[in-house]
């Protein structure tokens, strides 16, 4: 039984997320935890926007908050988001990783520790290598890895790096990703 889906993306990320999150059904059984690099800007406006077009509740993750299925959590700008073993959120102001805070690697790595083979990791469009090693960690601990096909991505560097380093089980175009995730969940043993 998958418990969580983690998503990492930067440049072109909002476009990519728009093609996935609104397609997830109201009774989506996984928690969704995402990092979108947006610099020092606030999350409020894109969270409001995604909420308007999605069936799932979308919010900024709060310090020590418990993570529930069927909700979408975004890392706050300028903080790393770590998942604790008891499925709660820890925020951190540690140094940037790959010039990024929040860093996708930090989220993926700690999510992999917590959820192991009950985790799906997804890397979308972006302009740096953040997320690739985190995705590898997800794979090593038995999770499923999906990467947006770099050939169709708005920015290919991030998905290419993830492809090269983590050797994900699935490399698929953006518009097929939501379906793929739903199929994976429906066909799991």
């Amino acid at each position: 039984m998958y418990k969580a889906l983690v998503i990492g993306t930067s440049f072109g990320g909002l476009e990519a997320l728009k093609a996935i999150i609104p397609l997830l059904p109201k009774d989506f059984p996984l928690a969704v935890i995402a990092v979108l690099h947006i610099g020092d800007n606030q999350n409020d406006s894109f969270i409001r926007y995604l909420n308007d077009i999605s069936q799932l509740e979308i919010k900024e993750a709060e310090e020590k908050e418990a993570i529930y299925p069927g909700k979408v959590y975004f890392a706050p700008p300028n903080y790393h988001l770590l998942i604790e073993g008891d499925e709660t959120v820890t925020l951190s102001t540690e140094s940037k990783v790959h010039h990024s805070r929040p860093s996708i690697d930090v989220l993926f790595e700690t999510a992999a520790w917590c959820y192991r083979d009950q985790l799906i990791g997804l890397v979308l469009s972006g302009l740096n290598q953040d997320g690739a090693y985190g995705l590898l960690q997800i794979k090593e601990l038995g999770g499923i890895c999906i990467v947006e096909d770099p050939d169709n991505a708005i920015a290919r560097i991030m998905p290419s790096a993830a492809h090269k380093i983590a050797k994900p089980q699935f490399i698929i175009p953006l518009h097929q990703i939501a379906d793929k995730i739903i199929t994976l969940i429906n066909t799991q043993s």
Partner: protein
Amino acid sequence: MPDKQEKLEAFENIDIEIPLILEAIYQKYGYDFRKYSRSHIKRRFIHRMAINNIESISHMQDKVLRSKDFFIELLEDLSINVTEMFRDPEFYASFRENVVPNLKTYPFIKIWHAGCSTGEEVYSFAILLREEGILDRCQIYATDFNRKVLEVAKQGIYATRDIELFERNYTKSGGKSKLSDFYTMKYGSIKLDQSLVKKVVFADHNLVTDSVFAEVNLIICRNVLIYFNRDLQNKVINLFHESLSSSGHLCLGSKESLKFTNKEYCFSDVDEKQKIYKKSLAKPCIKH
């Protein structure tokens, strides 16, 4: 694939080994990280293992028990010293507007800046208080458990690489002049005006193991609690509650809150968004 199996095995062991090494560090050196956020500690340890090419946490435990130098290295890893001047400028603007008028009513103001790290925010507050004309009335205790960062804080010398950010923050925070009025630039560094910290005592204090040391009117503790688990957060908030005078103010980091702590009802919001709280007069403070 034995390699894969071995990796999984080593990984399973880490969760057993971490409590053991934390206990060892506490027993041997008195620093208590047992109630820190576990995933934070784990990332730091794994990072250190990779850098020093250490095979396992158990090997690291052996090393830390035998070598004080290695312990100090680990201590550095576990303490987060990423900070900036006027970090979260909106917070400083709100502080100026909502807390300073209250502080001005006191003849003498005691301030505790807990977890002050390398001091950038101590100088920021000193500048703000001077601009508001009350710095001379303030006694500030700036504390951290890491003596190395306290030395940096005392010196007030920072790299110029962040100066643009500091300037930007200062302006956004409602600064009344130019930040450059408060520092001199030399050899690629800035040195903050030392008269700003004339009334600051930089001292070694550990929030986890030490207790109340003074009654204060204001506590600033930003981006420290996020590294603690809920239990320890409660303990430290209790410590702050005890240390504050009646109607004293408490300022936390912008993503920290009293929301999940057991003293939630012992404080009222001054600015909920900027995490500025005031100790409630009502006693006892219980959940309504």
